[in-house]
């Protein structure tokens, strides 16, 4: 793209809107250092007491570990399930491949509130509510379509000639996949991993339907906490989560190009 002068009016407008867009993320930072016991902005005094408070809150720490474990399990399962499917649909091209990909990505079109209710009703019947496997299954329903889409795109943009070259050099189909296809899909795989992890870790609507007093994910715990009292504890927690998200985004950007992964 060529460098073009941007009119000052547009610049000003864009920055105002950026300020609006980032405002809620920015205000949580000062609040997390509040010395007040309830939320007030600007805070009347400053302290760092809310950060250790997170780790003393048993409910939050338990929810954090649940979420972390859940996101990891979901991400791994997602890759294991979506990669073969993407390979089958893109490379083996069975009859009706197009229809199948539409079906497999359809859960993304459904509002999560509807999907959450639908899953709640069926999972209740099988005793999967408020269980770890139930949460994993529910999260897979929404993360798999993302994974399939990113991996299928990554696969279909690979130059087939390179794989053919490997096979003329004596590599068996499996060796070609392992030594050529997989390494060339690196950025797609990293993107998928990051996307699945973040989607699962941040998922709140499905989780709200699926959790109960026995098991809670971090976003659900935060939701209930905010619903009752919006104290600076959540701000401190939010700052940590934003930092975590930024880290993931930066890692993805460094390794595979953010724009490529998310904007296509």
């Amino acid at each position, binding site marked *: 793209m060529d460098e073009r002068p941007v009119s000052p009016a547009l610049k000003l407008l864009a920055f105002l809107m950026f300020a609006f867009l980032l405002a809620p993320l920015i205000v949580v930072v000062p609040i997390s250092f509040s010395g007040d016991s309830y939320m007030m902005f600007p805070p009347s005094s400053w302290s760092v007491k809310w950060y250790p408070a997170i780790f003393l809150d048993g409910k939050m720490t338990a929810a954090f570990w649940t979420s972390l474990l859940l996101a990891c399990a979901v991400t791994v399962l997602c890759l294991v399930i979506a990669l073969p499917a993407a390979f089958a649909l893109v490379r083996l091209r069975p009859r009706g491949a197009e229809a199948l990909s539409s079906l497999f990505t359809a859960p993304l079109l459904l509002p999560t509130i509807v999907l959450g209710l639908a899953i709640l009703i069926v999972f209740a019947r099988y005793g999967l509510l408020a269980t770890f496997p139930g949460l994993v299954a529910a999260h897979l329903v929404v993360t798999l379509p993302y994974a399939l889409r990113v991996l299928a795109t990554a696969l279909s943009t690979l*130059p087939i*000639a*390179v794989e*053919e*070259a*490997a*096979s*003329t*050099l*004596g*590599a*068996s*189909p499996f*060796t*070609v996949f392992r*030594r*050529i296809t997989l*390494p*060339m899909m*690196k950025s797609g795989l990293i993107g998928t991993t990051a996307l699945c992890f973040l989607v699962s870790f941040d998922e709140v609507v499905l989780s709200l339907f699926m959790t109960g007093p026995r098991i809670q994910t971090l976003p659900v715990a935060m939701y209930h906490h905010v619903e009752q009292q919006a104290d600076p504890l959540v701000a401190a927690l939010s700052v940590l989560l934003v930092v975590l998200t930024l880290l993931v985004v930066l890692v993805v950007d460094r390794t595979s190009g953010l724009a490529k992964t998310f904007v296509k």
Partner: protein
Amino acid sequence: MTDTSTAPGQGFLSIRGLTKRYAGFTAVDNLDLEVPKGELVAFLGPSGCGKTTSLRMIAGLVPATSGRIVVGGQDLTEVATHRRDMGLVFQSYALFPHMSVAKNVAFGLEMRKVPKDEIAKRVKEAIALVHLTGKEEHRPAQLSGGQQQRVALARALVIRPSILLFDEPLSNLDAKLRDEMRNEIRDIQRRLGITAIFVTHDQSEALTMCDKVVVMNQGRLEQLGTPVDLYERPKTAFVASFVGRTNRLKAVATDGFADFGGQRFAAPGDLSGPVEVMVRPHRIALAPTGGEGVAGTIMRATFAGDILQYDIDVAGQTVSVELATRGGETVLAPGTTVALSWRPQDVFVYGAAA
């Protein structure tokens, strides 16, 4: 006409009745070919003629609909690509972007479970052979197009394949580099005595590099012969017009003779009815009117430095004539009438249906 094809079974690479059909069309139609050991054979034809599909069938990348592919007496038709032991140099080079030059070249040897120290030795030799010593640890993206091409060549050569296949390997290079690579590929192939097939749509590439040329059109083999055969004794109108430039003139044949502009040419066989008469532009001589030959009127004269080109109207058809310049000749003005003549062996007559 000399028949240069070898009898079935005599070639090192033997292709019999090779056919590829897709829904609705036939990409390769009943191809028969015998390639003796050590020869470099070109598959030449316009895009869509089936040359690349034939090559891909030989490599096993496309399954043949019918026919056999035999190499050194072993039928490979049903053998998977990775067990065929052929080296293929791709048009796009198809280097492994995530591996260094050395790793790219070593890949085929690793697949063959060659011992580590021997891999190192052979990779070094292959890289030296293509003049890339010093670039071993570079990634493909860090190399120029010509260098990538050399890596692709080294990678295919290092496994000492029974047959080396080239799929338009020079089409992505600029003209100067292309000439250089042409000679280099030819030298290496001769030195190693490798049997090779070279797919190209560039006739000069086919004529200058290869021992024999297979001209293909619409999935069929039009002619197999040495470059001289193709140029001087084209078997079909397609070959005559595709290899080198030629005038295609309409004429009518009766009793084994074609008539064009008052001149009669022997027509092969018992051709009768409309025929095509072909003469190459630089095999036509011009003389002032009244001399021997067919009368024509100059319509346009173009001076192009090394040649002088005339478009001449002969009985309503345009004949292109090219004369090599020697200096001092006068450019004939449009409207001048001239006599065109040629040697009988420079004229080819084909049925017009062709």
